[in-house]
């Protein structure tokens, strides 16, 4: 794994999409332009997102997920056997539409805004999930590279829809076996290309714990039956560990937030990480990429019991707000964690992406850049402080 300086600064994944890219995405989804034509437009957007991250002082960059409709539905372009379907199209297949309507109301989103990659046939591979993203980044940056991928639990649960998927896979577990195979192949290919950090996104874990009232959620077009949350978490751990088993030489992270689909904080999930920590700690990954810049995230103290077991990708700015957190505020947040957590295990990032869903940027590129700049300045301060502290400690010993 790549050696890091203290408090590496990174992004969670997505960056706001410029209007021309959204237009191209709509045209691509309407079949008016080819995949290759869309990629040309996306290349430009990636270069812009990359430049802004580098100027802001980000150490580990992503391509801003500019090529993706959202953080997991993009796989529909990369795998055979999947169809991108809007929830409005899935409504005719849903068993409990009334319940889903409650979810849409609570989230204040239209059914057409939620798209999910639905498995309709046996999955077949094409040219990798994010290898094109990696190859382009490698040519255009000297910074360390992070590639976010949908986690195995997220992808399986989101893509399996009873009435459509069971023609190809009798059960979600059967689909998971293929999903894990595909993710492993992808990870090994990214590793061969020199990726520094692979982040597996599993935001659905929050829905399981905190979204107790709904069986179905925007994040998955269908969670078919209400299952025991602890059973679901165990399954998520099992599938994650099968995905990363035996693969070393690359940093693995799992990202779990409480939703990033709206700027209205009151519709997002809330609760501390306590109930899911025992399970997260069982995942054979290096880092937990978490959100902490919102009161909804609960107390830091839940980590005391698990101190230093894993790295923490510490969410220090809220990607959805207009106010720019100051470096001083960020330094204060980090100090609270560093009071009981090894500073060498703390990475700094926003709570989530700045444009998780392409058509619903949660912020502008300008604000995103300023927030990242603030984090970078805070990191510089913290490195100096902790270096000084270490020097003093070394001298006194």
């Amino acid at each position, binding site marked *: 794994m790549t050696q890091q300086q203290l408090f590496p600064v990174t992004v969670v994944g997505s960056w706001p999409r410029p209007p021309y890219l959204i237009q191209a995405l709509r045209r691509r989804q309407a079949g008016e332009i080819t995949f290759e034509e869309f990629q040309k437009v996306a290349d430009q957007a990636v270069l812009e997102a990359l430049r802004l991250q580098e100027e802001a002082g980000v150490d580990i960059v992503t391509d801003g997920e500019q090529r993706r409709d959202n953080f997991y539905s993009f796989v529909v372009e990369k795998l055979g056997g999947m169809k991108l379907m809007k929830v409005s199209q899935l409504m005719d297949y849903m068993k409990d539409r009334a319940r889903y309507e409650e979810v849409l*109301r609570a989230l204040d*989103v*239209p*059914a*057409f*805004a939620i798209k999910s990659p639905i498995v309709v046939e046996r999955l077949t591979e094409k040219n990798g999930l994010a290898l094109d993203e990696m190859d382009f980044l490698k040519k255009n940056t000297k910074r360390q590279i992070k590639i976010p991928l949908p986690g195995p639990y997220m992808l399986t649960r989101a893509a399996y829809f009873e009435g459509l998927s069971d023609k190809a896979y009798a059960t979600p577990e059967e689909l998971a076996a293929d999903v894990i195979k595909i993710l492993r192949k992808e990870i090994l290919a990214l590793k061969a290309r020199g990726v520094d950090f692979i982040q597996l996104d599993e935001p659905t874990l929050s829905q399981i714990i905190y979204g107790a009232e709904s069986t179905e959620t925007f994040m998955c077009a269908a969670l078919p039956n209400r299952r025991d949350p602890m059973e679901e978490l165990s399954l998520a751990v099992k599938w994650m560990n099968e995905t990363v088993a035996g693969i070393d030489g690359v940093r693995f992270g799992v990202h779990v937030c409480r939703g990033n689909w709206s700027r209205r904080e009151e519709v997002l999930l809330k609760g501390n990480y306590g109930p899911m920590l025992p399970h997260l700690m069982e995942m054979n990954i290096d880092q937990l990429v978490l959100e902490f810049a919102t009161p909804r995230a609960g107390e830091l103290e839940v980590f005391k019991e698990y101190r230093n077991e894993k790295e923490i990708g510490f969410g220090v700015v809220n990607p959805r707000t207009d106010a720019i957190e100051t470096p001083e505020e960020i330094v204060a947040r980090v100090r609270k964690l560093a009071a009981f957590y090894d500073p060498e295990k703390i990475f700094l990032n926003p709570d989530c992406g700045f444009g998780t869903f392409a058509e619903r940027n949660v912020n502008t590129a300008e604000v995103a850049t300023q927030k990242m700049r603030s984090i970078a300045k805070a990191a510089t301060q913290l490195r100096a402080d902790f270096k000084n502290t270490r020097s003093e400690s070394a001298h006194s010993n």
Partner: protein
Amino acid sequence: MGQEAQPAPEKLNGLHPKKIEEIMISMNQPEVLKEVSGPWKSRIVWQDGFRVKAYMRNHAVEMDEPGALDASDKAASAHEQLLSAVGSCLAVGFVLNATRRGIRIHDMEIALEAHFDNILKWAGQCDTGNPGYRGITAKLFVKADADEATLRELWKLAYEGSPVTQSVVRGTPVTAEFGAL
């Protein structure tokens, strides 16, 4: 030097703009206006319990009540379908006005919600009060090739020009006649 105007597409939003324009203009002719003004009709045929079937021209729609009312819940209730009627008419108006302006709609939904003012009156538990909705909220979600200001304008036109919505808003009188056999 100005840009050349784009020719109107033959089909937009599933409609034919040129034909739509011709139809709208034709309504100024007295005989066309008379025909489109009505009468519009619906025949409700009781099936069983709270379930009815509504026949409108060559179409039929069932209506029922929720299971909590000892009903079979085989179809949406009349009061839910009223919300749907308002929403549908708003949607039609939005699409009409967008199409007339050459604006392409990619996706559109309208979410409606309402509460009864005093449903006890319907249940025979109270002699006074309004058993109807105290107000209806209709929220538009739209993805279209126009800026927000334009889309808001289209929404306003849809609201002000919606026959169903305005029937509700203006409190259209309902004359209840009795046909003895």
